[in-house]
């Protein structure tokens, strides 16, 4: 269905071409979260993303379709996600947006999110803004695009010669003989010979850059990207075999043109990108480097994406009511936030030893320690005085009973035993199971009360495929849904990250009404995220080979137990002798 891009108004100098275009290239990971993260970060700078169906000439920032994409993504899930987005800005914003210091061009995610940077809405360049996105890999000032190299070259020529903004930018950078440059070609893992790459470069030689070529740290880096379809693992996807059943032959120039047809071709000037080939310094936050981990620690990228959804920045006050090992709060602290965490479970808070506990993760990265309190979120109002809205964001991964069962204080008995005064100090409080539906209702209620206006609640909720956003997500009149992004973990089960924004002040007199309206379909939809451990077990039992695998696991556990016993016995004998 590939057709060459219809150039809108290519023959008349109309408003639609007088826009400043930016191509955002994402890392090939968490594809469902990319646009949402971008939206939240842009919103922090007062930039609202409009859709391309709205009047393009008046919106400050609009997403325009990629080559080959339909105008409106009516069913976004049915179209394969591509790791690119084109943002269209007003041309009057071009100078401010493209302004940057040389030092900012290669960002290390670590340094751009530390405690020193504050959001500067008026003066922010596009690099300042987008480098806050964990999932963004690079940013190009887009000069042209198309479904083929020829189309892209033609589009670029049109922009640099027929549009006011294109001409002015061209004058500033390309026509300036003192500015060095180089032209890089990205073919996304497909192979091209030297001659073929030279051929591609030649198609753009009409641009006639005046300055000298410099391979290392030139003033301007121009980039030509040939986008191909990717498989699920960030490798180029082979084209479907031809009807004859034989493999499509490579072209005579020994390149991959036919095996990997182009989805889109882009040409532009690089404004900035992550410093290392991989993830711009994100690797240092990988869980495998952490001093203290637990079974519920959240992976680094997703934690950072959650902080983006929460618009966490220097000076934000962030609360995590289910803090566990503190992995989410760590990401918030790296964004410069003042962090408060609470948990009912003393074991994760205390850690395994002096050297392995929640503080050490923060010490490891030279951050201020978070405030940790041991409280029960189901009775938040009995631990904390009623206070004016305090938190800018509440970000958490609530316990939903798969790897960590949720508990709340209290006895299962109708009338619990009285604890004697002399035992009070050492008494370990009893806890009872805390149904997931209540975990979520209490969370939304606490958020509605304690978030500042426009503050954000971000949480993770597991769901099976039969989850329906409209009816199964918990809701609250004071909170508005902003994002709901799904990450599949297996064929049936996945995780949803939800972001909500406080839009109405909490009215204490309506508390009962709030709590009963949280689950639209009542208990039925609450059930969908409850008892997941049982559901997963049921689903696993249906799979073939389950009995054999279960038997193998039983044997292994037995052998392990036996080995431990033996070791203990032997050490006792050694001590005795």
């Amino acid at each position, binding site marked *: 269905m590939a057709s060459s891009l219809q150039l809108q108004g290519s023959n008349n100098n109309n408003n639609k071409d007088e826009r400043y275009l930016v191509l955002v290239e994402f890392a090939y990971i968490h594809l469902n979260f990319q646009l949402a993260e971008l939206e939240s970060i842009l919103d922090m700078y007062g930039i609202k993303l409009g859709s391309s169906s709205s009047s393009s000439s008046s919106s400050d920032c609009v997403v325009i379709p990629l080559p080959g994409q339909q105008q409106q993504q009516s069913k976004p899930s049915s179209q394969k996600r591509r790791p690119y987005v084109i943002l269209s800005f007003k041309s009057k914003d071009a100078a401010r947006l493209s302004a940057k210091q040389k030092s900012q061009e290669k960002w290390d995610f670590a340094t751009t999110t530390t405690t020193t940077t504050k959001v500067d809405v008026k003066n922010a360049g596009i690099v300042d803004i987008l480098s806050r996105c964990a999932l963004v890999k690079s940013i190009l000032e887009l000069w042209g695009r198309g479904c083929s190299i020829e189309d892209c070259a033609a589009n670029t020529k049109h922009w640099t010669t027929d549009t006011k903004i294109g001409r002015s930018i061209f004058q500033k950078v390309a026509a300036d003989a003192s500015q060095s440059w180089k032209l890089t070609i990205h073919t996304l893992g497909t192979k091209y010979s030297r001659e073929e790459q030279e051929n591609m470069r030649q198609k753009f030689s009409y641009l006639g850059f005046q300055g000298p070529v410099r391979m290392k740290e030139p003033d301007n880096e121009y980039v030509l990207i040939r986008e191909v379809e990717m498989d699920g693992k960030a490798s180029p996807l082979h084209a479907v075999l031809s009807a004859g059943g034989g493999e499509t032959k490579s072209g005579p120039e020994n390149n991959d043109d036919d095996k990997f047809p182009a989805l889109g071709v882009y040409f532009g000037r690089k404004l900035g990108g992550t410093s290392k080939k991989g993830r711009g310094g994100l690797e240092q936050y990988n869980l495998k480097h952490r001093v203290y981990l637990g079974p519920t620690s959240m992976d680094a990228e997703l934690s950072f994406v959650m902080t983006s959804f929460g618009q966490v920045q220097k*000076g934000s006050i962030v609360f995590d009511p289910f803090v566990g090992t503190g992995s989410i709060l760590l990401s918030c602290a790296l964004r410069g936030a003042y962090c408060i965490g609470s948990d*009912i479970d003393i074991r994760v808070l205390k850690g395994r030893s002096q050297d392995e506990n929640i503080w050490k993760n923060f010490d490891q990265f030279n951050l*201020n320690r978070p405030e940790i309190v041991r409280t029960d979120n189901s009775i938040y109002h009995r631990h*904390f005085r009623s206070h*004016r809205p305090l938190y800018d964001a509440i970000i958490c991964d609530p316990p939903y009973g798969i790897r960590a069962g949720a508990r709340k204080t209290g006895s299962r008995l109708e009338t619990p035993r009285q604890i004697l005064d002399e035992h009070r*100090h050492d008494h370990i409080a009893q806890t009872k199971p805390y149904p997931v539906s209540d975990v979520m209702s209490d969370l939304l209620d606490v958020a509605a009360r304690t978030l500042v206006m426009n503050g954000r609640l971000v949480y993770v909720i597991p769901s099976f495929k039969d989850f329906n956003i409209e009816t199964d997500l918990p809701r609250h009149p004071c909170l508005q849904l902003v994002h709901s992004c799904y990450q599949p973990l297996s064929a049936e089960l996945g995780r949803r990250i939800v972001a909500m924004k406080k839009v109405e002040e909490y009215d204490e007199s309506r508390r009962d009404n709030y709590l009963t309206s949280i689950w639209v379909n009542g208990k039925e939809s609450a059930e969908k995220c409850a008892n997941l451990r049982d559901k997963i077990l049921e689903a696993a039992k249906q799979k073939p080979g389950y009995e054999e695998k279960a038997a193998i696991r039983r044997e292994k556990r037995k052998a392990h137990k036996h080995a431990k016993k033996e070791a203990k016995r032997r050490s006792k004998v050694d001590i005795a002798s």
Partner: protein
Amino acid sequence: MRLLTHNYLISNVKGTKDGYPLRIEPSEVTVEESPFDQDLVTRILPKLDYAAVKAALSQVVDKVEPKPAEIPESLPDGEIDSPTLEALYHVLFNIHVIEGNLVCPDTGRQFPIKQGIPNMILHEDEI
């Protein structure tokens, strides 16, 4: 536990009439310097119970080394000058009670603080 956190904690054991503010009985206190954030402290001041801040400081100050700068008797209206904001920031964010107890002014119930973490969990007969 920082004094900022203490400002929000209450005791709401069954039958308690007024469990705020909790009295701090510190046995170990440390001072951790952190970069002064003027915006943060300015934003948070209107949300505090200032009398409780002063009470908390008086309860821990004997164990604080070096001695913190004085904070005002009451919060001035309008803009607060930078040295005062710094003193307030220091008291709220840099003083940590590592070991001790928080005591309910009404019932005397003690909530222990261990390794900087206050344990506010209610026992099953207190709910």
